[in-house]
């Protein structure tokens, strides 16, 4: 048996699995995306060309959701990576000595995002939540965390607190993989730690930085669970992300074709972002 044939046989189960799990829904999404489909006509969609895409692109709520997702994805990705990088570099000596500290630092990541949303809904409630309670007790005042004026900042902070450990783990691995002799050589030459970080360590970690930024951006861009359970679509749709827009269009309004068209647009955007990130990563590696 040739290697090629062996590879094909070994890869077949995975390929079949992916085709079943991802391929079928993708084909269905494409069919519904170019059809006039409702729950009553799920099995007999009528071809409608690009009408759904035109409807989506003409819908102000779609653009509002796209702008929210873009802002949310970009801000949370930058914050998580900046914090994760700082923590990784600062805590690396501690982690080297006590490896178990990593387990504590990644606890927020283990909680399901939907549960995190529900938890904040309780914690931040003006009358039932401990945080406003103590702020009122100590300062006689508390911000309304989920009011229109603060809700965006609140969901950004919630997402950052949960997913910074992910960026931290990536950066810690990258930081620990930098050869120790490079640091020693720099130290022998009298290079100060700050300069060593900027000129040696950070450039070596740059490919990881790009990957982390990309992953966190995509995760933030398609955010759903924690925001939906915390504040829903928001007053006037102010916390409607792309995923929430698709969910509500599909299930709440029953406009299946339009929801699928929006999902395809989201997929294309993510795909283009992936291609761009790969290019940047390769460039950084060179």
């Amino acid at each position, binding site marked *: 048996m040739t290697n090629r044939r062996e590879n094909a046989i070994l890869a077949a189960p995975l390929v079949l699995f992916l085709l079943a799990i991802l391929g079928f829904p993708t084909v269905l999404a494409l069919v519904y995306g170019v059809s006039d489909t409702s*729950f*009553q006509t*799920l099995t007999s969609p009528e071809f409608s060309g690009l009408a759904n895409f035109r409807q989506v692109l003409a819908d102000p*709520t779609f653009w509002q959701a796209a702008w929210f997702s873009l802002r949310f994805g970009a801000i949370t990705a930058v914050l998580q990576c900046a914090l994760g990088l700082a923590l990784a570099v600062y805590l690396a000596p501690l982690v080297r000595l006590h490896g178990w500290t990593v387990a504590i630092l990644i606890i927020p990541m283990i909680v399901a995002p939907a549960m995190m949303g529900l938890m904040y*809904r309780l914690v*931040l*409630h*003006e*009358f*039932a939540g401990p945080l406003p309670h103590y702020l009122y007790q100590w300062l006689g005042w508390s911000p*309304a*965390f*989920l*009011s*229109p*004026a*603060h*809700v965006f900042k609140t969901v950004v902070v919630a997402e950052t607190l949960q997913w910074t450990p992910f960026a931290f783990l990536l950066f810690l691995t990258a930081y620990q993989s930098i050869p120790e002799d490079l640091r020693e050589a720099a130290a022998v030459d009298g290079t100060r730690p700050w300069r060593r970080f900027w000129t040696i360590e950070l450039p070596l970690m740059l490919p990881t930085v790009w990957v982390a930024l990309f992953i966190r951006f995509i995760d933030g861009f398609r955010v759903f669970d924690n925001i939906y359970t*915390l*504040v*829903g*679509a*928001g*007053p*006037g*749709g*102010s916390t409607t992300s792309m995923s929430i827009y698709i969910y*509500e269009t599909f*299930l*709440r*309004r*029953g406009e299946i074709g339009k929801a699928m068209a929006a999902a395809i647009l989201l997929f294309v955007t993510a795909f283009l972002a992936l291609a761009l990130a790969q290019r940047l990563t390769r460039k950084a590696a060179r």
Partner: protein
Amino acid sequence: MTRKMHLLATAAALSLLSGLAQAEVTVLGWPGGPEETALRAVTEVYNAQPDLAEENKVELLFTSRDGFFDKLQVDLAAGSTAFDVNLIATYSIGRYAPYMEPITLSDQAGAVFGDTVLKTMQFDGQQYGVPTDLSLHFLYFRLDLTDALMADDAAKARYAEISQQHLGKAMEPKAPADWTWEDFVANALYFSQSVNPDSPTRYGTVIQAKNLLFNMMVFHSWPRSYGGNWMDDAGTITVDSEAFRTALSQVKMLFDLGATPPDSTSYEYAEANAAYAAGQVAAMVQWNAAAGELTAAQAATGTTAPPAGPDGKFTHIHGLGLGLNKAAENKEGAIAFLQWLSTEEAALAYAKAGGAPGLAAETAAKLATDRPDLVQVGEYASTYGFVMNGGTSEKALSVYEAQAKEFTGYWAGTQDLDTALKNAATAMADLLK
């Protein structure tokens, strides 16, 4: 070996057939809360009937409340046979009607429930369900606060001053049963520390204003009392009306002046109740289901019908009920159960077990000792209950969704009143065409 295999196969086939013979009526109910408890209780009564065939006994199925109606939509559209009878609500009958079958209720149904309540389960003139629970709204208020206000001349003068400043006329405090919506607003402003720093409560009211369809139902009693409706008899959308403008502006005033918690734009039922239960809210309009919880938290709580507008007092009503899945495998058994459920025996058992059926006065009177609250619910439903024109249509849920998005946007200050009403009217014209 071959003989053993034959025996095994025969045994398997027999057990499968016996399983089919014992097929039961599966009922998908509303999970959690008093509705589940009551349904379990009546099911036991039904299954205990001596002449009930084994294959027609009722088995209950519950999922989570989260996204219940979305999951039900998908199940029904897919022709699921996992249940024979399923939950429906007034506002979703039109959406689910294509996947359900109309039913005929028992002869007693009219007398047990009354026409107003039976209509909450009708679509296109046909009965799609047995009404099991009725929801409407009460005005909850702190008796201790309103009594103290009405007994204190200095407080009355301050009340008049505040109402003059914000509502343009000096008003006198009244008993909550006599309130108009202007009295409700004046009372809310007086009991808000942002307006009246001496107020014993932080907020005069709490408006649950999360972008959520159920919150629109709570709000609708307000514009309806000013004569508002979704559309007129000719089918013209009438949401962009003076009635909706007045009601929306009055709520906006409460937000702008800090008479409701600033983050109540993220509140739904539980959060609003928590605010009232904490003793920091003087009065609120809330579902009747909250009566026990709010009264337990604040003993001096009084309840009455929502305030009046120029057209009188109104309360949104809707029913939860059980109807027949078109794809049901045991239709005969399911219909028998639904007919029994619409008898007086079943309605009384359901109510005694904690459910909240909307009962006609004569039937409710039989529960005056066990469930006095149901007498009040029945009275308010028949006197003040309303369903907006188009409120049971196929796209009724989407209309609520569209209004929730636009109106909460106005209250939160993300858009002006004209834009909110224009967008709502456009969306409704598309949905109700």
